[in-house]
């Protein structure tokens, strides 16, 4: 999986790169408009992370360029601009997703995972991991072929953990993922416990090994 990170803040680009640098992802960087144009001209990427304000040009022009060239690279805009107009404009110009800064790296990883999954739907509509099988089309989770009934939130959580497997996911990141904008009005993320606890219980009752580890009350980790 090749990912192009178009971001002029080298620090941020590197953090993203090192978070994503596991066996699936190969990250390349572009720190300016010109560099980004050159890269998209020559190569194809599974996913492009695009900052809108770049030295040397507007990120929207990169989107337009991708469109005129008829490229099918998935694009996630990562921008400090959070006005609705920018979001709409970005999505209309052909971006697949829009993430407002600052974001949790785990959220970004989940979005990338789901974007790539969508792009190559035919091959990967079932995620398999040992005894656990997740059908993304029908949203059915089975353990040893026995279905586990999950609520929408629990299903979301499971996917979030799997797209961040072997990473520590903080409680605040989970809260934001589950409740969106509303979550960041509160500092109390206790409701996360309930959802995670239920998910754990249902999986273990279904005979699934305990992959979901709790870390000192700070976060969680899906370990395989």
């Amino acid at each position, binding site marked *: 999986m090749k990912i192009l990170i178009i971001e002029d*803040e080298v620090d941020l680009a590197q*953090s993203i790169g090192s978070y994503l640098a596991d066996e699936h992802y190969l990250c390349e960087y572009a720190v300016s408009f010109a560099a980004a144009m050159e890269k998209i001209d020559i190569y194809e990427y599974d996913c492009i992370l695009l900052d809108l304000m770049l030295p040397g040009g507007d990120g929207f022009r990169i989107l337009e360029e991708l469109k005129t060239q008829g490229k099918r690279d998935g694009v996630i805009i990562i921008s*400090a601009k959070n006005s609705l107009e920018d979001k709409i404009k970005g999505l209309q110009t052909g971006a697949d997703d829009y993430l407002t*800064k600052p974001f949790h790296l785990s959220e970004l990883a989940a979005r990338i995972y789901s974007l790539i999954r969508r792009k190559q739907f035919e091959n990967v509509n079932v995620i398999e991991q040992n005894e656990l099988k997740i059908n993304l089309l029908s949203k059915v989770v089975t353990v040893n072929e026995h279905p586990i009934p999950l609520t929408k939130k629990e299903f979301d959580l499971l996917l979030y953990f799997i797209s961040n497997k072997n990473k520590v996911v*903080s409680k*605040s990141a989970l809260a934001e993922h589950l409740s969106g904008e509303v979550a960041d009005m509160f500092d109390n993320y*206790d409701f996360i416990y309930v959802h995670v606890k239920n998910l754990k219980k249902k999986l273990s009752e279904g005979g699934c090994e305990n992959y979901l580890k709790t870390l000192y009350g*700070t976060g969680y980790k899906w370990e395989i």
Partner: protein
Amino acid sequence: MSKLLHRSLKRFIIYSGLVLVCSIPVYYITISFLWQYEMDEHNIILTDEALREDRFLIVGAVTLLTVIFFALLMAGFILLNRKISHQLWQPFYKSLGQIRNFHIHHQRTLSFESSDIEEFSELNQSLAKLIAGNITAYDQQKEFADNASHELQTPLSIIQSKLDLLLQSKPLSDEQYHIIEDAHRALARVTRINKNLLLLTNIENSQFMDRETLDFSGLIENSISQFNNFITNKNLLLEDAIQPQVFIEGNKILIEILVNNLLTNAIRHTAENTSIKISLTPHLLSISNPGPVALRQEQIFRRFATASSLSPGTGLGLAIVKQISNRYGWNINYSFSDGLHTFQLLY
């Protein structure tokens, strides 16, 4: 190019002059005719008696004529005045109409018609200058808000990503995890304050101008369901009396923010195992929650008035509520009685 006063005055003077010029031969002919008539009638011999009789006739005729000309003059003035006002003030009304329809966020520059009247052309020039200045200032402010958001959000995202990375490194002790989580919390608060400050600037800048008719009841129900996690988590009882089919006019995003901020406020500051009351009628939204002491009435809607180390909020939520209600000319009131904080929105 002429002055407004001169222009109407000139017309009046010309008209009066014309009336005067017309009246001279009329007076002359009439008096001559009368004189001739009198001569013939009395065979030139003018007796004292006749003279007196004639005088009455002449005086009467002159008075009548004068009255006729006066009436003519008045009628003319009235007609002229009406026509002049209509014509002369046309550019003024056009400019007025343009200003009335002008909204700064539409970014449509005004082009005033050129006028050959000095006052109006000066007025139009000044207006054009004023509006152009305002548009520039508005654009600069918007750009500033945009840039400020970018400039702050970027370092914030770097910190956020570094913390996320730090969380991945091992081995980390229990204590280290907690330090990272505390840093995460503080960072989340800074991010929220930054977002809210930008929102306030944007409301003041009169963005979010578009209005639509919204189903207020549905919107509130929707917000409540979003907060369900937090309500059940605190074991709060929600007593809602929301009248269905209440409609409200405004920008959807702003109204949602207003409702969310009031709800957050109530949920955050309510002790566990108590209840929050929400009621909605066609002209009043009321949200109340129990609390030990009254808040300071004059302080609560001001920025950062309530922010302290004790309250986890940004200190901007109610300032934003106030700003949004001001924008739509609504009233937001706070009252405290029987251990109950009540916020009432009258719209």
